[in-house]
């Protein structure tokens, strides 16, 4: 009986954590840990900790575990042992060094994908336990630097990317003008009270990926959707505070988002192809604000495209002819049941869809979600090495003929990009909107 070898990778240096723990001592840690455990948790955590029979059956659910040759340090329960169990056992009297390790594990070695909840016989919610650990780290001020920076941005600007108040409408106007080259009558309607749809995006779209707003505007215009975008704060549906354990900030962000939609008197919020934002708006943020389900109907892009295609409001001129494989993002498929609709859309716009295995709610996570990619460059290899199994899964889809990988989620997109690149998988990664935009019937196409 030997203790398994320690994780071999050297852990990245992180200023946020280093500086954070340099201000801590055991007394302070004890106070915060017991404060969170006694004050903020209840029956769930108690039942999870006391019911877990240490059977290890959750291990094979986790892509980190599978990708590290079954190193038990990366199993779901193994990560709980190295973090929360120890805090409970020592009644919160753990060292700053311990907090450092716990911060790295909780923020960069678990994507909170909840796949393990489908593998534990008791349905123990490891992702929730990890979120409690992140909450403790947040209260201790030792959150990894990059993700903490995005949380600060949320707090100051109500968007994730420090987009200034004037940059936002400027970007929309810019994209409107660009799109008018294609459809001269196109508008991106700002502040249109009583529109049917408020379209909301994530911070990185205006910052780096403005063409996605362009594509969305074209799709909305061609489909004749009565839509609007806010000119004020509340346009960003993303939420990194949810992942840093800063629940109060999460509440502020989501309240702003919902209230903006309410002010515009829209019937529903349609959001772009983003997974974590969906989780925040549909599952987490609304609950923090006391809404059982979102106060305004939330429609994820997948569902929105599904409706448009099904109702014939957008037509496909010629289906995308390269064989595609479809990645099921955890937050919308395991978290929102959009697996079937996703396939409907894929089949409606592509000639050939090749399933990867496993799929639907059993799909492997991209390893970027849960805020892990937002912890920044120091952890890039944590994500890439932690998801070799994804590369294998993609390779086998490629062997069956897939050339393009559809990933209808921003985090998945970026995370899969790194994996595809590192392992040389050689798949082109696309959003649904990329393909819809390229293959749909547009006014000028009919004229030509």
């Amino acid at each position, binding site marked *: *009986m030997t203790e398994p070898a320690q994780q071999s990778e050297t852990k990245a240096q992180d200023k946020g954590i280093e500086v954070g723990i340099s201000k801590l001592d055991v007394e302070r840690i004890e106070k915060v840990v017991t404060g969170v455990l006694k004050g903020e948790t209840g029956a769930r955590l108690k039942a999870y900790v006391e019911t877990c029979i240490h059977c290890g059956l959750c291990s094979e659910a986790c892509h980190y575990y599978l990708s590290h040759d079954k190193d038990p340090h990366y199993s779901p329960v193994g990560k709980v042992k190295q973090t929360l169990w120890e805090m409970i056992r020592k009644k919160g009297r753990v060292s700053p060094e311990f907090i450092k390790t716990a911060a790295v594990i909780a923020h960069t070695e678990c994507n909170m994908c909840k796949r393990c909840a489908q593998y534990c016989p*008791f349905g123990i919610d490891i992702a929730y336990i990890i979120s409690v650990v992140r909450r403790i780290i947040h209260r201790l001020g030792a959150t990894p630097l990059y993700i903490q920076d995005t949380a600060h941005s949320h707090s100051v600007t109500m968007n994730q990317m420090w987009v200034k108040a004037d940059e936002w409408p400027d970007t929309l106007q810019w994209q409107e003008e660009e799109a008018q080259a294609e459809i001269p009558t196109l508008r991106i309607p700002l502040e249109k009270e009583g529109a049917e749809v408020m379209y909301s995006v994530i911070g990185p779209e205006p910052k780096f990926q403005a063409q996605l707003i362009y594509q969305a505007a074209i799709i909305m215009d061609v489909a004749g959707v009565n839509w609007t975008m806010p000119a004020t704060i509340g346009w960003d549906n993303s939420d990194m505070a949810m992942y840093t354990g800063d629940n109060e900030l999460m509440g502020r962000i989501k309240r702003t988002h919902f209230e903006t939609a309410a002010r515009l008197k829209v019937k529903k919020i349609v959001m772009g192809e983003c997974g974590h934002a969906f989780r925040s708006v549909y599952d987490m943020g609304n609950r923090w604000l006391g809404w059982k389900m979102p106060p305004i109907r939330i429609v994820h892009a997948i569902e929105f495209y599904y409706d448009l295609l099904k109702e014939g409001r957008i037509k496909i001129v010629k289906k995308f002819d390269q064989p595609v494989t479809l990645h099921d993002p955890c937050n919308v498929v395991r978290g929102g049941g959009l697996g079937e609709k996703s396939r409907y859309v894929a089949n409606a716009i592509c000639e050939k869809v090749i399933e990867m295995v496993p799929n639907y709610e059993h799909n492997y996570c991209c390893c970027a979600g849960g805020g892990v990619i937002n912890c920044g460059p120091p952890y890039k290899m944590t994500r890439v090495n932690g998801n070799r199994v994804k590369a294998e899964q993609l390779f086998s889809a490629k062997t069956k003929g897939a050339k393009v990988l559809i990933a209808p989620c921003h985090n998945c997109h970026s995370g899969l990009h790194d994996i595809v690149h590192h392992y040389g998988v050689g798949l082109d990664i696309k959003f649904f909107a990329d393909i819809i935009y390229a293959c749909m019937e547009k006014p000028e196409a009919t004229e030509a």
Partner: protein
Amino acid sequence: MVDVYTFVSGPLAWAAFTICIGGCLYRLISLIVLAYKKERFIFTYMSFSYGLRSIVHWITPFATENWRRHPVLTVVTFAFHISLVIAPIFLLSHIVLWEEAWDLRWPALPDALADTMAVIVIAGCIFFLVRRLKLPEVQFVTTASDYVILAIVAAPFVTGFLAYHQWVAYPYMVIAHIISGEVMLVAIPFTRLSHMVFSPLTRAYMGSEFGKVRMARDW
């Protein structure tokens, strides 16, 4: 000897059953009260049908992805848990005791079958022990209490098996059997054996979240 027997099978048995049932109720009620006080939303999201849907999948052998992945474990764990519960309740010599004390009676299992079930439980304990010692992912999260729990569960079946076959020191074996059974009863509410009480709740809650909110399968 007779005195000891009368004591362990009389007042001590009373105490053990009372502590077991009372303890389980106490744990259950205090958990529900805690949920009511601090996480009342749990009741909002709990769904009877989705909770049950999840439980049914997980108590059916091979009905879940993870059971299918571990065929040997699945067979062992189901045989083990069924035997663990059924054998003591339907063992003829136990029913006789209930009849003497309460004039209650119900059909008994054939002795040979009950005997086999005891062997299954003991074999199951050995299987779990080997798993704990040999599989790195289990060994890594194993604590001393996990071995103690296994011993607590194995003891009444080992002693019962030996007593039934009357191979060694019969009267002592009977007394050891009764005491170890009582230890197990008392341990149920206060050790991780309480998964017997709590697991339907945790499963039902996850089943409800998956069914109602996430609209996905949790098996």
